């Protein structure tokens, strides 16, 4: 499987075939999901319309965690099997993950202001997500800090694996510490604790976020491979970098 996808040309053929489907799924689920979230779903009896922030905030938070997990997995693949594309995928995913984390933090602050009347609270969930954001920045910065890009990729992959300790901390922070942030209400033992009229738009938005991420990731990997080709051609013709 790894070796099959290690060929950049083959990877891109599959990527290009999947790309339109990703856009289609993102547009469809995002469109329906946003309509349901903003108009068709009920307002919360306590929070009013501000509960609709959830349909952006929660999928963004899920993406922030899963993109980091993806990066750590690809970092491990890159370090163990020396897979040539794994570094490219990990580096392509890092700014996207940082973006999702930023969306999660900003929407969280807006939501916190309306329902807890505070922009920021130093509780476990918020601080650990902030640390996640800094880890993303570190992964991006470290990869670009060396004259030899291969070296930067490797150091960045090690950092991604070291930073992975933070992911379980984020996940369980709401259970370990008595915090302002509510505990998990969708993925929990005994089924989701929210009503289906809110669960459906949330699920659709989550699928839309995932498809959107997949589309952007394919685009970014395609760009990185193209950039390498350009560089290789220039080296052959002796144009330098």
């Amino acid at each position, binding site marked *: 499987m790894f070796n099959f996808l290690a060929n950049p040309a083959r990877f891109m053929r599959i990527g290009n075939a999947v790309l339109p489907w990703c856009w289609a799924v993102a547009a469809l689920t995002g469109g329906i999901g946003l309509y349901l979230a903003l108009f068709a779903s009920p307002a919360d009896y306590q929070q009013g319309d501000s509960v609709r922030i959830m349909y952006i905030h929660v999928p963004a938070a899920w993406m922030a965690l899963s993109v980091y997990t993806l990066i750590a997995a690809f970092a491990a693949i890159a370090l163990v099997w020396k897979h040539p594309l794994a570094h490219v995928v990990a580096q392509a995913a890092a700014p996207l993950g940082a973006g999702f984390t930023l969306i999660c933090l900003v929407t969280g602050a807006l939501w916190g202001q309306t329902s807890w009347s505070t922009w920021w609270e130093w509780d476990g969930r918020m601080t650990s997500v902030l*640390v996640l954001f800094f880890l993303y920045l570190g992964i991006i910065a*470290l990869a670009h800090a060396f004259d030899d890009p291969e*070296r930067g990729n490797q150091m960045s992959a*090690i950092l991604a694996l*070291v930073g992975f300790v933070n992911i379980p901390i984020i996940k369980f922070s709401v259970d370990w510490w008595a915090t302002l942030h509510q505990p998990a209400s969708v993925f929990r033992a005994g089924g989701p604790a929210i009503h289906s009229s809110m669960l459906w738009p949330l699920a659709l938005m989550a699928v839309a976020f995932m498809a959107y991420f997949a589309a952007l990731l394919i685009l970014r990997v395609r760009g990185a491979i193209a950039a390498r080709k350009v560089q290789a051609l220039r080296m052959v013709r002796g144009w330098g970098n």
Partner: protein
Amino acid sequence: MGALFAITIHDLRLAWRRGAESLSVVAFFVLAAVLFGFGLDGDTAILSRVAPGLIWVTALLAAMLALDRLFNADYEDGSLDSLLLADHPLELIVLAKCLAHWLATGLPLIVAAPILAVILNLPAPAFGPLLAALALGTPTLTMIGAIGAALTLGARRGGVLISLLVLPLYIPVLIFGVGAVGDGPRAVAALMALGGFALAALALAPFVIAYALRQAAR
């Protein structure tokens, strides 16, 4: 074993002869705390309340200042290559170097902490817990910092980069370090957590550092 001690002693002797390293760390530590004193307008009531946090934050920053010396000199003059070729596992050599670094920069922080506690008006019963927390927390700072130092070896703008990598990872030590300065079961639990961090860092970090150093030397 003897070779490992030799590395520790060699690094300590270098640090002693350069002299400036330990001194500048302690000087930064004390000066930053004095700045907080002025910044808070010398309000002793506020200072004594925030003193544990101020001391820990300045200790974190001071510990970070000295990190780029940890492997950089060996990397630049090529002695890192001979350490890689040595008979002893690189993980143990790393541990020996980290021990020297902690003795040269971590221990002076603990020694200087009571001065800061006096300047910042920390209540007298909190002195003991503060020193215990620093003694348990600074080894973790050294080990996490060494990971950052190994990862940024040979990087452009390594000094700025290392703060971006290391400071977020220092946050747990800061949280529990401040929590340990107090009394009651919560402070004891925080102290135990600090001890746990130190043990985990001592056990796991050398492998990461050694791996990064091997990549750096290629």
